[in-house]
């Protein structure tokens, strides 16, 4: 689906507002200055998604997802390179992890990333839904670590036979003096993407 310059700008602005709000929430939780921006938004067909994400397909990725339903349906997946997410959690949780065993560490990372992802996805989706006048209901968050193709394949498993598209938001997270490049992907059917874009056009026409 082709977006013109203004539509792309609008989508990026919505994502930026959503993730800035997430940054505000995270800063409260983590007691730290946090910035989150979305420098780039892309829309690609599902079969191009792993390539468009520009992540090493062999590297481990930590992913948090929540599916959503309403006028548009799909799954929002937030991904960070595993290495970075681990370092981030270690920096944030810090002293309480000292002396924790490997198993405990993994548990802590898993829990912390799930909550952080939960906040980012919820805030991002809330702004998009609000601005476009959509009602959205989210599922409980899930977490998985794996390489990119595996993660995308797993998340797309229930969509067999449907033509899927992905709205990709490149995210830039600054926290605990670290900068982390992540991706948020909204995996949706072509019809759902169309509903979303119709709303976007309506918003832009009203301005």
């Amino acid at each position, binding site marked *: 689906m082709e977006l013109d310059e203004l539509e792309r700008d609008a989508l990026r*602005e919505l994502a*930026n507002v959503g993730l*800035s*709000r997430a940054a505000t929430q995270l*800063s409260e939780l983590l007691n730290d*200055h946090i910035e989150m921006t979305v420098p780039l938004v892309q829309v690609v067909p599902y079969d191009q998604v792993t390539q468009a994400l520009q992540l090493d397909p062999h590297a481990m990725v930590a992913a948090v997802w929540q599916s959503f339903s309403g006028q548009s349906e799909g799954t929002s997946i937030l991904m960070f390179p595993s290495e970075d997410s681990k370092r981030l959690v270690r920096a944030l949780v810090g002293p309480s992890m000292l002396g924790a065993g490997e198993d405990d560490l993994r548990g802590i990372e898993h829990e912390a990333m799930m909550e952080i992802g939960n906040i980012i996805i919820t805030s991002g989706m809330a702004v998009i839904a609000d601005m476009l006048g959509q009602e959205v209901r989210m599922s409980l968050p899930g977490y998985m670590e794996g390489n990119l193709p595996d993660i995308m394949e797993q998340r797309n498993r229930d969509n067999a036979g449907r033509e899927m598209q992905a709205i990709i938001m490149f995210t830039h997270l600054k926290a605990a003096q670290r900068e982390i490049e992540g991706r948020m992907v909204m995996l949706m059917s072509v019809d759902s993407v169309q509903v979303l874009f119709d709303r976007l056009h309506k918003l832009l026409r*009203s301005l």
Partner: protein
Amino acid sequence: MKILIVDDSMTSRMLFKAYMPKDGQHELFEATALPDALEKMREMRPELVVLDYNMPEYNGVEMAQAMLGAGLKAKFVLLTANTQRTVVDSALAVGFIQVVEKPVNAVKIAALLAQVA
């Protein structure tokens, strides 16, 4: 009142304009980045500058510092969804009179103009 709005997002500037009262009392200028903003500032001498926080090269607070450094006497308002303490504090420290939470709507803009007037 002459108002300069600085935001890299066209949508955000359009939203702001759309919610401005259409009473002919305000003149709105737009800029997308620092050089542009400095030029408009010299030309138009705005009384109110509305800055987005989250922009690619300099954030809104840094831009305000540059404009103040260039000798602009105006009221500054920060427009952002990132309303965490550190951001608000940095804006107030530079002399911003208010932080308005994105996304804007008619109510927020009316309140802002009432406060500035």
